[in-house]
């Protein structure tokens, strides 16, 4: 059972992950083969120049222990190398995990409870000293310190003794389940089989931190770089971050990061409209600018679509993310599967997608897993609603359920202007369900109140809008938190909102976690998703599509299915 404090971090997971992932990639049509095919400036990418990053969110807590990233993040990945990392390729290839500091993805024992990594030779920090496996162990141990919280809960959940460990400042002895037999070897001992450990090893917590240079909570001001860039300026907790080349980084040991620009200037705290306006104008330094966290909104897309030159400077990508309706079967009438099925039939995905920004910004979803191979997506549509909903079928089911005179329900949503769980989506559903004789009352909650309410087992409403993003592109972190019965949390943040506790599902999750063949695991996750879908505990609505502008001098756009956004480590400005 997870500890409440551990779980509560996951609340932020979906959002934070998104933000940081978004920071990683930025341009180029997602399905294009060539990296720079969508770029305004053609030609071979050259070294040199300054890349400007215009962002809304600051790079706060720029400490590898505190960052919550998917695949090591976008900007963090320029400074922090990790044991493994994401493949910096366009599309589906980019959803693969590849070695970074390690020579391979790790050698598991027979039941995937022990993972051994060997470091590459010649790895150096920004001061020229050698990176050792002990530094990686120390880096992970730091992330257990309460004052350096913020990272994902997996290490704490998976490592033997992790649940009680308080970090190296309080417990000098360290964590026994991480062993360093020599300077280049590190061994992890887990409390249960975890075939997806290589995915977890992409997170910044596996970044080496030299113990002698550790300044605790102040380390974020100048973390010691293991990547191609080092921090030269960090103002106002990451509001402005200037990175320059790390002379001791060698491309020979790093196949993933291209590091074309000499300097990277990250400016945050900007308004989304300002960022998009500056990128579309592309004047002065903004010509060599990208954003790692700001998508085009519906109105901005409408303007960009009408301008061919501008449209050529839009990168499109897919991040593993699903927006859905969630039911609480403990609340009447949603305890009745027929009612849940009726609503599944009645939804009008076209108007929901229009409310989310239209077909360019959202794709209809009938499966809980995102439609990407890495998730093992298995297509299914158990309650076919067509494009605009099947009101007749819904009415039929309601009649069978005893609601032939119609039904009145309350739909809970947030008041955030995010086109995800916001009033626009709720009203679109309200209009669609009306056709099936279901009167929907809307209950809009302020954003924080909303996430507290839907993740509180005692307060959870019966019918609400929800979303989920992947910590890494696999079925595991997508299905387990939502459908594993052992992850139901009565006191604390609960993500199993359908309170599903099906021994068969739980067993299958355990079985898949034992697999170290990620392809085989993916297929099993897809099949499991299809099976869970029959229970109609959720109604998948749409998967978002990311569209982002970049400046006219920006080249070598790589957008992977892992992050869905342009990868700053690949971008060139000359």
């Amino acid at each position, binding site marked *: 059972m997870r500890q409440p404090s551990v779980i509560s971090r996951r609340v932020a997971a979906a959002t934070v992950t998104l933000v940081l992932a978004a920071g990683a990639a930025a341009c180029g049509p997602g399905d294009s083969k060539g990296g720079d095919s969508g770029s305004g400036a053609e030609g071979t990418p050259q070294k040199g120049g300054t890349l400007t990053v215009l962002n809304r969110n600051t790079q706060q807590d720029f400490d590898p222990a505190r960052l919550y990233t998917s695949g090591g993040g976008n900007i963090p990945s320029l400074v922090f190398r990790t044991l493994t990392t994401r493949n910096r390729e366009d599309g589906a290839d980019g959803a693969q995990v590849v070695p970074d500091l390690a020579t391979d993805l790790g050698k598991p024992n027979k039941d995937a409870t022990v993972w051994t990594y060997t470091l590459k030779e010649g790895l150096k920090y920004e001061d020229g000293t050698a990176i050792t496996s002990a530094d990686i162990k120390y880096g992970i141990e730091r992330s257990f310190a309460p004052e350096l919280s913020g990272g994902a809960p997996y290490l704490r959940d998976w490592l033997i003794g992790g649940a009680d460990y308080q970090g190296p400042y309080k417990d000098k002895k360290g964590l026994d389940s991480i062993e360093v037999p020599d300077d280049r070897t590190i061994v992890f001992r887990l409390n249960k089989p975890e075939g997806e450990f290589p995915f977890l090893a992409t997170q910044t917590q596996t970044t080496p931190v030299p113990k002698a240079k550790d300044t605790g909570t102040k380390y974020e001001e100048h973390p010691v770089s293991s990547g191609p860039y080092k921090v030269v300026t960090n103002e106002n907790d990451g509001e402005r971050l200037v990175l320059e080349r790390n002379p001791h980084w060698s491309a020979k040991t790093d196949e993933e990061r291209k590091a074309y620009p000499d300097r990277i200037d990250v400016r945050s705290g900007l308004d989304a409209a300002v960022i998009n306006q500056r990128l579309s104008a592309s004047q002065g330094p903004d010509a060599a600018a990208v954003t790692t966290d700001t998508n085009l909104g*519906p*109105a901005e897309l*409408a*303007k960009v679509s009408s301008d061919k030159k501008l449209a050529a400077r839009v990168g499109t990508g897919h991040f593993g993310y699903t927006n859905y309706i969630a039911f609480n079967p403990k609340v009447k009438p949603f305890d009745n599967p027929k009612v849940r099925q009726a609503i599944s039939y009645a939804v009008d995905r076209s*108007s929901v*997608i*229009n409310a989310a920004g239209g077909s*360019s910004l959202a794709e209809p979803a009938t499966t809980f897993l995102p439609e990407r191979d890495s998730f093992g997506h298995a297509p299914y549509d158990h309650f076919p609603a067509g494009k605009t909903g099947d009101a007749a079928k819904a009415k039929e089911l309601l009649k069978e359920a005893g609601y032939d005179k119609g039904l009145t329900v309350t739909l809970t949503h947030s008041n955030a202007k995010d086109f995800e769980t916001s009033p626009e989506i709720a009203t679109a559903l309200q209009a669609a369900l009306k056709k099936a004789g279901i009167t929907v009352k*809307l209950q809009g909650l302020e954003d924080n109140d909303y996430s507290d309410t839907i993740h509180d087992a005692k307060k959870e409403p019966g019918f609400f809008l929800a979303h989920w993003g992947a910590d890494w592109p696999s079925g595991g972190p997508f299905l387990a938190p939502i459908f594993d019965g052992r992850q139901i949390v009565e006191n604390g943040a609960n993500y199993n909102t359908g309170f599903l506790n099906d021994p068969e599902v739980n067993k299958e999750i355990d079985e898949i976690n034992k697999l170290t063949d990620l392809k085989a695991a993916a297929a099993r996750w897809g099949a499991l998703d299809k099976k869970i879908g029959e229970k109609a505990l959720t109604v998948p609505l749409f998967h978002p599509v990311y569209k982002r502008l970049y400046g006219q001098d920006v080249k070598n756009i790589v957008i992977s299915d892992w992050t869905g956004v342009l990868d700053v480590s690949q971008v060139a400005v000359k």
Partner: protein
Amino acid sequence: MSEALLVQEAGAAPAVAPASGARLFRRRLRAQRAAFAAALVVLLLVLVALAAPLLTAVAGQDPNTYHPDLVDSAAGGVPIGPFGGISADHWLGVEPQTGRDLFARIVYGARVSLGVALFATVLQITLGLVIGLTAALGSRWVDQLLSRITDINVALPIMVIALALLAIVPETFPRPVLIALVIGGINWAGTSKIVRAQALTLKSLDFVSAARLSGRGKWSIARRELLPSLAAPVITYAALAFPTNIIVEAALSFLGVGIKPPTPSWGQMLTEADTWYQAAPTYLLLPAGLLFVTVLALTVLGEGVRTALDPRAASRLRVGTKRTRAGTKQTRVGTKRTKEDAA
């Protein structure tokens, strides 16, 4: 908010209503062409709001029906066709992303915008009258207490209080009523100050003393002697507060604590439209333009009411008198004096 200005302007109106009453008032109002035109505009808007179901039925539309086929989904949901999708069916075009009929939403929005502002104005005037009169007629202790409460109320930042109140009240409470209650309930201090001041002046006048000496009770005096004389400043104040309340409602809806979707209000439409100013300008211009016209008309009308009720300004209007050209000069002097008084 020009609270102080409103108080001042309303205060400039006389305590004693013109003797000739309603008919003279109407004639004076009609004599001001701008005010007359404004009155017609306001009347038209009120009729449109009242007849919203009828008008939308004539247009064959509904404010909440989605038309996904009328927007270009691939381009972010921008309406298909010129000027935001204007067509024979959709007279003012459709809303981006949803395809809902803008004409239907505008006329239904008028109901909310005007209705909320009207209810809020009535509430704030009623509260102001009761509190102001109680302070003027009550004991010194009551007067002190109510006056200090009024002072505190004047100092309260209305938007901040309204934001807080609207955020904590449960969703189940009918939203338009709640907004009217909030706006009216925290905005009465201006009226109560004027009423108290005028009532204190009136109290010392002979006709009130006569009534008191004849043994009439306090509330009888208030109703029979004071209220008729307070009508002029209070009506003036109400006429000027009404457009302000429309703006407050729009602002609250714009900030996301006002009217909840799918109910349309002009302020709420403005919120939705703010990012669309380049891609679908009509969507923004319609509610913005209507708000502008409504508030302008009501303000001009309010100013007209004030002028018509002001005997000093009335001479300028030359209603019911047979002044010659020479009289015009006198009017100018009169106007000037009014301004000095106000200052």
